[in-house]
Every structure is written in C-alpha cells, then in structure tokens.
C-alpha cells in the first residue's frame, strides 16, 4: 500500500499558550478511511488543520505523498492544498451565494485570479459541478441560495465543493456533529462512497463510536494532544473506551 501522509512528532502550541498537540506521529495509506476520535478539546481539529496548514505546526513534520510540506508556502502551498479537500462541522458555505457557486469555489485553486473573480468558470467546470452535486444527490438545488438548504443538504454541498478539487485526501472535521442521527448516517454514506468509489483517502474526526465502527477502516484516538490508541475499530472494547473517554463515560448508541 502506498503511503499518502506521514506525520512525525507534531507539536502545536497556540499563541494563548495551549499545547494542543504533543508529539503526534502516524501514517495514512492510500484508500484508507481513518477516523480520529477523542474528547472535546483533545486536539482533533488542530490536527486536521495542521495537515493542510490552516494552522502552522509549531514543530514536527508533515509529509504528503512523500514531500515535506511543513514549511512550504505561497504558490507551492496552494498547489498542495488543491489536492487536500476539507469538510467542516459548520459546513462553512458562502451563505448568500447559490449552491452552484459554492461548489465552483472548490475549483479556485486551479483558476486564474481574474476569471475566478469575474465568475467566468469554463463550461466544463460547471458541468463538473453539476456532476458532483449529482453524486451527493442534490442536483435539483443547484440554483438555490445555500442558506436556504437544510443542514444535511448544506453538508452535501460542502462535500461536492471539496470534490471539485479532485482531492487525493479528504479531511472531515466532525462533519455530522450538528446533524440528527438519520441525516448523520446518510452523510457518512456519501463519505463512504467518495472513499470506495472515487478512491479518495479520508481522515475524519468523529464523536459517535457506532459511526466509527461502521465506517472506519482504522482508528486513532487523541487524548490531551497525544495518541493513546491506534488500531482497528473492532479493538475498541470497554477498557479502551474508558481509557479514551475517561472513567465516567458511557457509550451511547446511534443508528
């Protein structure tokens, strides 16, 4: 299996002094569906943001497809980011824009500045956007304003937007945390589809263990900025669960 991401001894100290990541190391291989679990504040979001450099790691290295991307910047950084899609808990769409423009925004990294600002997307881009909306099953909403859609639909738009990048790696930061259980499951199925059918490697932060067991091919667990578990989802038994989430925690079921 080909390695797609290599993270070594990653530290992140925020300017406020919070030491959010304390020497995290792991590898990700092509085609994996890696799920990151851990309590609130354990550093999951920080970890994902350090991978595509929305946050600057304080020390350590991140290698993407064999290349050290920890210190690249400018055009080079933008070209690497093109290959790494990201989906957020709060969807982060441009609310006042139509769905189709939100999806097209995923192509910005490939476009020249002037045409993109004028909204001059080539016809094949628009076709691709429609195709991606079709993949997530909301083609008929293409010309609605993004904030008119429900949460689940907005998250599907966000997935379509990231697909426009033709990503090799997709980062998803608690993509279903603000959705109801049924919608959560259907969104996770789209991630599975992207992973299995389009062959995109996925790293996904999740809270619910039932979703983890169902979709993850491998799991790492963070606690206070350190990896405390790494393995297959089947290995997370009662004992591990208490280690990761604390003694008082009890598993809740979500289907």
């Amino acid at each position, binding site marked *: 299996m080909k390695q797609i991401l290599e993270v070594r001894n990653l*530290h992140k*100290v925020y300017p406020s*002094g919070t*030491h959010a990541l*304390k020497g995290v190391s792991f590898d990700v291989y092509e085609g994996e569906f890696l799920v990151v679990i851990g309590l609130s504040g354990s550093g999951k979001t920080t970890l994902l*943001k350090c991978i*595509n450099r*929305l946050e600057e790691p*304080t*020390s350590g*290295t991140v290698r993407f497809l064999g290349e050290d991307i920890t210190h690249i910047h400018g055009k080079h950084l*933008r*070209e*690497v*980011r*093109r290959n*790494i*899609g*990201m989906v*957020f808990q*709060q*969807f*982060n*769409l*441009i*609310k*006042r*824009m139509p769905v189709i423009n939100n999806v097209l*925004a*995923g*192509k*910005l*990294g*490939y*476009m020249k*500045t002037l045409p*993109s*600002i004028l909204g001059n997307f080539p016809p094949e881009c628009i076709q691709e956007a429609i195709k991606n909306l079709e993949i997530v099953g909301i083609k008929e909403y293409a010309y609605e304003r993004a904030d008119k859609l429900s949460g689940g639909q907005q998250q599907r738009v*966000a997935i379509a*937007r*990231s697909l*426009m*990048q033709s990503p090799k790696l997709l*980062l998803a930061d608690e993509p279903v945390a603000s959705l109801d259980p049924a919608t959560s499951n259907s969104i996770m199925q789209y991630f599975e589809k992207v992973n299995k059918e389009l062959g995109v490697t996925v790293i996904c932060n999740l809270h619910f263990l039932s979703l983890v067991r169902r979709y993850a091919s491998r799991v790492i667990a963070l606690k206070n900025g350190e990896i405390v578990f790494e393995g297959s989802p089947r290995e997370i038994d009662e004992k591990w669960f208490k280690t990761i989430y604390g003694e008082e925690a009890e598993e809740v079921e979500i289907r």
Partner: protein
Amino acid sequence: MLEPELEFHPREKILKKRKNQEKINLIKAILLDIFFVFYTILVLQRAIYYKVILDLRELPFSWTEIGLFLVVSIGIGTIWGLSRTSLGARIMGLAEETKSAKLVSEIFAWALFNLTFISGWLVTKISIIDLFSKEGIEGANRIFSSLFTPEMGIFDDALFAIIETIYLALIATLLSIPPTLILSFVTARNLMKDNIFTFSIYYVLRIILNFVRSIEPLIWAIIFSVWVGIGPYAGMIALLVHTIAANAKLYSEAIESIEEGPVDAITATGANKLQIIWYAVVPQIVLPFLSFTIYRWDINVRMATVIGLVGGGGIGTMLMQYQGLGQWHEVGLIVIMIAIVVWIMDYISAKIREAIY
C-alpha cells in the same frame, strides 16, 4: 538519516512567555500609578487650592513646579506600584488579595472620581443663576418666539442653500466609498496579521486613520476653508476626509468580525489571497458596508449644516450670517428647515437600512 531536530521545549517557552507578560504588566501598573498620583497632585493644587481656596483668576504656572510634581509622582507611583497595593496594580490584575490592599485601592479610586467630578464642575462654571436670570429668560424668549414666527421672505434662498448642503453631503459620501474600501481591507487585522510587511502597513495606516478621525469635521472645515477658500468645496473635502477615516474603521471592524469558517473553507481549496477575499470575505460584508454608508450620508447632512457655520458653505453659512446680523426671524426659518431635513433624512436612511437586511 538523522533529522536535524529543532531545539524545542514548549513548556519552557510558555513559562518564559508568562513571566515576560507579568513584567510588562508590572511596568504598565507602575506607569498608571505614576499618572494617577501626578494627576491627583495637579488637580489638588490647581483646581482645589488655587481656584477654590485662594479663588485666583489667573492661575500661576511654572515648569519647575510641574517638574517637581512629576518627580514626586514617579517616586510615589513606583514604590506604591511595586508594593502591589495600588490602584494600577489592581487594574492590571497584579494586586495582593488582602483586605487592606483592596480597601486602599478602592478608597483611592473613589477619591479620584470625586476629585475629577468636583473640578469638572468648577471648570465648566455651572451656574443655575445664568439659566434663570432676567436677561437669560429674555434671550430665550427672543429665540423661541422668532422660531414660531419665521421670516418666509428668504425661503427660496434657504431652500437653495439646504439643497446645496444635502448634495455636498452626498458627494462627500459617494467619493469616500472607493478609498474607504481599499483602506478598510488593509486595516483589517485578520487579513494583515500574517506577515511583518503587511502588518506594518496595517499598523501605520491605523495610526494615521485614528489621527485623522480624532480631528472633528468642524476643524477639518476650518483647515480646508483656509486651504481652498470658504464655500461648499471646503465643506465637502472636510466631510470626505473625516468620512473616509471614520468609515474605514467601521468597515475594517466588520471585516474583522466575519465568520472565519468560510475563510478556512476557501483557503483549504488552494485559493489565493484575492480569491479568498472575494469569495469568503466580500459576501459577508456587502450589507454592513451599504448600511454604514447610507447612515453616514445621514450623519454627513447634519455635519454639513454645522460645518457651514465655519465657512463650509450651504445652509450653515447662511445661518451664521443671519445670526451675526441678529435677524432672529430669518434664523428661525433656517433652524426649522434644518430640523425638517434632518428628520426626513433620518427616516429615509433608517427605512433603506431596514429594507437591506
């Protein structure tokens, strides 16, 4: 291969930072205390001793005295601040948590407030007598009665002058938009903080804008009426300058308070800075910008009338002329017309802003 591991000890780094922060806070506290003591001595001497006790008309002034006070204050302030029982230490969060330390700083704060209030009262010479004296009442009578019997003969001239004022305010507002837009982006902290070069641009421009804004339009009008001559042109430039500085601040604050989420999302696609601004920032700020600008037109109409008083053209200049001649019935008409226009502008701008949201 051995990696050239960076020297890195996060915990030490954090501790060191915290220590430095404490040092800086202590210095700030001491400076505050020096100021408080200096202020107290000065006010006690000049307002209370000279004015109240000696009842002097001309206050004596000597630099040596002030210098002496300053030296004394530096001494007291430093010792007091270092003892961590002072008001400055409390404000900076460094004070000891003992009962007596608390009491001392509270009493001092209370004394400072009273001292300021009393000397403020003295300085503004508050006098109930003037308000209700015979002459006072007569003056008020003259003004109010002419307000109700305005001289309609100058209506045409006044109308023309007030239209001039409205246009002047409108042009100042419209011309302010392009420079304000540019300035607001380069003075928005969240867009400029990433590298030293842009951050220094941000910093210098902020200082300049703060300075320009702290000078009232009225004073700008005085400056420009000397510069380009009395008339609407001077008034317009004065408003323009102040509008740019004031709105650049409002706009840049709107930019600073946008949701970060969309910015992250667009950044993650590999977009460049301009694309990020256009796709993630601009859509979030169009409406607040429009709203500020319309509101500013409304404010500018009011300011334009005041600016006219110092030679900025329009209805204000006309008002000043009739007031100088003591023609109170004409003044009455002008005041009524200004009130009506301001009220209408206020109403319209509120309605437009409502409609936008």
